[in-house]
């Protein structure tokens, strides 16, 4: 059985993660899959390395899911994030939300991924043809 919240060095299995939130009473599932892009802020990207504080990351995922479930009329939330080195095109994060009605699932899925980016203790080193740098996405 796939976990609902996971930070893992293994490739993400989109189908298994969607299945975790799918129940017979849930009419719609909205999924967000983030993949490593081949460019960022105007330069080429060859690979990314994710570092995390794993014990805290899964705890924060669960807090974010609890918040989403109390804010929106949804059923289930799953959040899976990669750690380690990823090449271009590989999924780095998958969020899946199920709900009886689709509007809430869209809103909640966007809320969750926004919060994961803002609050989950995960860091990303970008490898470019010119070297490597820790990414600071905050404005």
């Amino acid at each position: 059985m796939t976990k609902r919240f996971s930070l893992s060095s293994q490739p993400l299995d989109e189908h298994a993660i969607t299945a975790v939130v799918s129940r017979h009473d849930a009419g719609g599932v909205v999924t967000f899959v983030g993949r490593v892009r081949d460019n960022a802020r105007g330069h080429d990207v060859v690979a990314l390395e994710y570092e995390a504080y794993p014990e805290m990351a899964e705890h924060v995922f669960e807090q974010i899911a609890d918040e989403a479930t109390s804010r929106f009329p949804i059923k289930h939330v799953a959040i899976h994030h990669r750690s380690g080195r990823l090449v271009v095109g590989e999924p780095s994060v998958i969020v899946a939300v199920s709900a009886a009605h689709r509007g809430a699932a869209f809103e909640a899925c966007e809320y969750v991924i926004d919060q994961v980016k803002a609050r989950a203790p995960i860091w990303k080193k970008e490898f470019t043809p010119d070297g490597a740098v820790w990414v600071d996405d905050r404005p």
Partner: protein
Amino acid sequence: MRVTVRFFASHREATGLSTYIADVPDGSSAAEVLGSLCGSFPKLKSASVRVAFAINRNHVNPATPLRDGDELALLPPMAGG
């Protein structure tokens, strides 16, 4: 009192350490522990201009006091997703 400090990403590279046991005055806040660490690890000062704190895996504000045995994590700007 003793607290366990965790370093990640740019902080880990600046200090060369993932984990560090710090002896600090009783009741020190997260920000005060960082101040003391910057004395021990000069490179940490510039690397921690924008830092957040977690105590025992929960986000806290910088003024939060620590207790003996706590785990303090210094969090550089997060970039999950």
